[in-house]
C-alpha cells in the first residue's frame, strides 16, 4: 500500500514511476474523461453548429438539450444491431473495435500535465504517428467488409486521403521536433513531455519560434489533421451528399456509435498532439512576459474563474427560462447543473487543487479552441473534391512542409553553417 500512495508525492508519470497499477488507473480515468468529453463534444457541436446556422439546436432533452448526448447514447445502445447478410462478418465486427482502439491508443502518450500522462515514452511523437496511421486500416476494413458500393468508395477515398496527408503531417512534425534540438545543449527529443519542456526552456511556443516557420508548420499540421480525422472540409470518406455515409453506411446502432466515438476521440487526440507540439502543451500562456509570483497566482485562479463563469451562465439561463409549467423540470435541472459547476469552481479555487489542476486546465482550454475550430470549419466550408484534395495534399502541403523543414534545419545550423562557410572561404 505504501508504494501505491507514495506515487502521489512523486513528480513523474506512472510509466516512469514504474507502477502498473497507477498506469491502469490513469488509463481508466483518461478513458472515462475522454468518453465524457466526446459526449460533451457532440452536444457542443450540435449547439454551436446550430447557432451558426441561426437555429437553437437540441432544446428538449434536459435544459438546453444538455442530456441529449445521454439520450443519443441510450438510443444507439438499444438499437437493433444490423449485420448485413453479404458482409464479411468477422471483419465487419472487428473494424469499429479496431478504429476505436487506435483512437484511444494515442492517449497513452499525451501529456495533460507535467505528471499527468500514462507514460512518457522517449519516442512519444513517433508512437503517435505510427498509431494514428493505423486507424486507416479500420476504415478500410469497414468499407471492404460491408460489401457495398458506398462504403467501398468511402474506404478507398479514406485510405488515399489519410496516407497522403500523413506525409505532410509527418514532415511538419519533424520540423517541430527539429526545433527541440536547437537549444543550448543541442539534444533533441521525441518525448511528448520533452517537447513541452523544451518549449518551456526555449521560453516560447514553437508556433512563434523562427517566425514564420513555426507558424507555417503548425498551419500545415492543422490542415493535415482535419484531413486525418475526416472532418469537413475534408470529410470525403463520409461525404453525406455523395456517399450517403461513406465507410460506415452499413453500420448501425452500437457499432456505428463506436465509429462515432472514435472519430471524436481521434479529433481530441490529434488536437492534443498539435497543442503539445506547437502551443506549449500544458504550459500556461505568457510564461516569460507575465512571470513572477503574483502572475502565477493570477493564472492559477483561471480554472476556477472559468467554471464560476459557466456556473453563472447556467444560473442566469435558469432565471431567464420561460416561467411556464412545462419548463419547470428543465429550470430546476439547470439550477442544479449550475450548482454543480459552482461547486467544481469552488473546489478549483482550493490552493492545493489549483496548482495541480492548472496544467490540465490549460491543456484542455487549448484543445477546446481546436474543437471549436473543427466545428467552425464544418459550419462554413464546402467540401473538397477527391482530386482537389489530393492536389492540395501532394502539390501544396507537401512541398511547403518540405521547404519549411529544410529552412528550419538551415536556420538551426546557421551558426555552424557560417563557421563552415567561413572556413571554406578562408
Amino acid at each position, binding site marked *: 500500500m505504501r508504494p501505491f500512495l507514495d506515487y502521489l508525492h512523486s513528480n513523474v508519470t506512472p510509466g516512469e514511476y514504474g507502477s502498473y497499477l497507477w498506469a491502469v488507473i490513469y488509463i481508466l480515468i483518461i478513458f472515462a474523461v475522454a468518453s465524457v468529453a466526446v459526449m460533451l463534444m457532440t452536444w457542443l457541436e450540435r449547439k454551436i453548429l446550430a447557432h*451558426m446556422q441561426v437555429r437553437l439546436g437540441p432544446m428538449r432533452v434536459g435544459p438546453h438539450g444538455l442530456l441529449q448526448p445521454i439520450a443519443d447514447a441510450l438510443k444507439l445502445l438499444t438499437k437493433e444491431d444490423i449485420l448485413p447478410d453479404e458482409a464479411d462478418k468477422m471483419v465487419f465486427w472487428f473494424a469499429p473495435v479496431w478504429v476505436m482502439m487506435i483512437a484511444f491508443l494515442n492517449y497513452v502518450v499525451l501529456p495533460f500535465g507535467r505528471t499527468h500522462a500514462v507514460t512518457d515514452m522517449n519516442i512519444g511523437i513517433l508512437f503517435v504517428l505510427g498509431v494514428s496511421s493505423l486507424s486507416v486500416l479500420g476504415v478500410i476494413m469497414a468499407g471492404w467488409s460491408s460489401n457495398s*458500393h458506398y462504403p467501398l468508395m468511402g474506404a478507398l477515398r479514406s485510405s488515399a486521403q489519410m496516407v497522403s496527408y500523413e506525409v505532410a503531417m509527418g514532415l511538419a512534425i519533424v520540423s517541430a521536433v527539429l526545433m527541440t534540438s536547437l537549444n543550448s545543449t543541442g539534444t533533441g527529443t521525441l518525448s511528448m513531455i520533452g517537447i513541452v519542456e523544451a518549449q518551456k526552456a526555449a521560453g516560447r511556443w514553437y508556433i512563434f519560434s523562427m517566425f514564420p516557420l513555426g507558424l507555417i508548420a503548425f498551419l500545415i499540421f492543422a490542415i493535415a489533421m482535419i484531413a486525418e480525422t475526416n472532418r469537413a472540409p475534408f470529410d470525403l470518406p463520409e461525404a453525406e451528399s*455523395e456517399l450517403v455515409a461513406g465507410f460506415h453506411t452499413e453500420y448501425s446502432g452500437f457499432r456505428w456509435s463506436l465509429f462515432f466515438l472514435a472519430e471524436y476521440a481521434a479529433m481530441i487526440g490529434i488536437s492534443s498532439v498539435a497543442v503539445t507540439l506547437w502551443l506549449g502543451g500544458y504550459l500556461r500562456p505568457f510564461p516569460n512576459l507575465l512571470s513572477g509570483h503574483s502572475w502565477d497566482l493570477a493564472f492559477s485562479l483561471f480554472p476556477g474563474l472559468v467554471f464560476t463563469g459557466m456556473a453563472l451562465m447556467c444560473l442566469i439561463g435558469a432565471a431567464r427560462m420561460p416561467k411556464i409549467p412545462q419548463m419547470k423540470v428543465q429550470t430546476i435541472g439547470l439550477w442544479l447543473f449550475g450548482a454543480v459547476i459552482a461547486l467544481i469552481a469552488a473546489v478549483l479555487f482550493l490552493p492545493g487543487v489549483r496548482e495541480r489542476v492548472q496544467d490540465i486546465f490549460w491543456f484542455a482550454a487549448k484543445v477546446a479552441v481546436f474543437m471549436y475550430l473543427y466545428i467552425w470549419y464544418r459550419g462554413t*466550408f*464546402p467540401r*473538397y473534391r477527391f482530386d*482537389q484534395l489530393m492536389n492540395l495534399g501532394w502539390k501544396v502541403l507537401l512541398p511547403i512542409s518540405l521547404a519549411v523543414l529544410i529552412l528550419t534545419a538551415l536556420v538551426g545550423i546557421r551558426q555552424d553553417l557560417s563557421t563552415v562557410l567561413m572556413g571554406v572561404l578562408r
Partner: protein
Amino acid sequence: MSNSNFYDDAPVEAPGKTFLDSTEMVLNMGPQHPSTHGVLRVILKLDGEKVLGTECVIGYLHRGVEKIAENRTYAQFNPYVDRMDYVAAVSNGLGYCGAVEKLISAEVPKRAEYLRVILTELNRLASHQVWLGTHALDIGAITPLFYTFREREEILKIFEKYCGARLTTHAFRIGGCQYDAYEGFDREVLAFCDAQDPRLDEYEELLTTNRIWLERTKGVGILSAEDAIALGVTGPVLRGSGVRWDLRKAQPYCSYKDFDFEIPIGLSGDTFDRYVVRIQEMRQSLRIIRQAVAGLPEGPIMAKVPKVLKPPVGEIYHSIEAPKGELGYFIVSDGSTQPYRVRVRPPSFVNLQALDIMVRGRLVADVVAVIGTLDIVLGEVDR
C-alpha cells in the same frame, strides 16, 4: 423506368475472369439518396470515381397530372398545378391561368397583373433560395441552407398573408386574382426587398470567393451553348451557357414589358456561371418587385369571366419563364367545361436530360454538384 439497356453495355465476362478484373462499377444513387433532391434515381457507371455514363430513372413521383386535368374543370385544375413544381407554386399557377385566359381571350386587369408579377418574382426568389441552399449543401457547405430558408420564410409569410397558404398557394384564379393585396402588403414587400440585399451579399461572402467553392464549381458540368439549345434546356441553365434568352423579355407576358430589368448570362456554361446567373437573377427579381410595388395601380383584380368556363374549341400553347426555365401549358379545348388535353412542358424534366452530357467523364462528386446546379424539382419532372 427500367434500365435493361444500361446493363447490357456492361462488359461481357470473359472466361477465366472474375469480377475483380472488371474495371467498371455500377453505382445506384437514389431514389433515397441525400442529394438527389427527392426521388431521382441515377444509375452511374463508374470507373473508380470517374463517371462513364449515367441513366436517370424517374417517375417515382408520377401522379398523372395531365390525366387529372382531363377530369377536372378548368377552375378545378388550378390547385393541382401548384403540386408540380412545389417550390415555385405561384409560377405554375401564373402559367396555367395565363394559358386559360388566352384560350378564353380574357383581359386581365392591370392591378391583377402587377400583383401577379410581385408574387411570381417573390416566388422566383424563394425558388432560387431553395436551390442555393440545397446546392451548397450538396457541395458540402451546410450553413447557407439555413440562411436561405430564413429568407424564404419571410416570402412564405407574405404568401400566407396574401393567399392563406405557404407552399401550395393557389394564388391566382383564371381571369385575375382571388385576393387583393392585404393591408400593408406593399410595405412588407419593400421591407423584405431591403432586407434581402445584404443577405444576398452574405451568401456571396460565404460562397462566391471561397476557394473550395470555386474549385468545386468552376469548370464543372460545362454545357456549351450549342448543346444547351439542342437539349432544349431553358432558364438559368440556358443563360449560364451564354444564351441571353428570357421569356419575360423575348415574349413578355403579364405586364413584364413595363419593368426594367436585365438578363444575366454566364460565359462558360459551368456550374459557377449558373450559380452567378441565379444570384444575379435574384437581384433582378428584387428590382422588378420594387418597380411593381411602386407602380401598383388601383382597380379591379378580376376580369369578367363566366363562372362556368367553356372555352371555345381550339388549342393554345402558353409559356412563362418559371424559376427553372420555360414552363409551358398546351391546352386543347373541345368546348366543354373540362379541358380535352393539358400538356405541361416541364422545365425540370427537359433540363434533367442534360445531366448525362454534363457529368460524363467527371467524378462522382461532380454528379451531385451538377444535379444541384440543374435545379430540378422531382414533382415537376415526374408530374
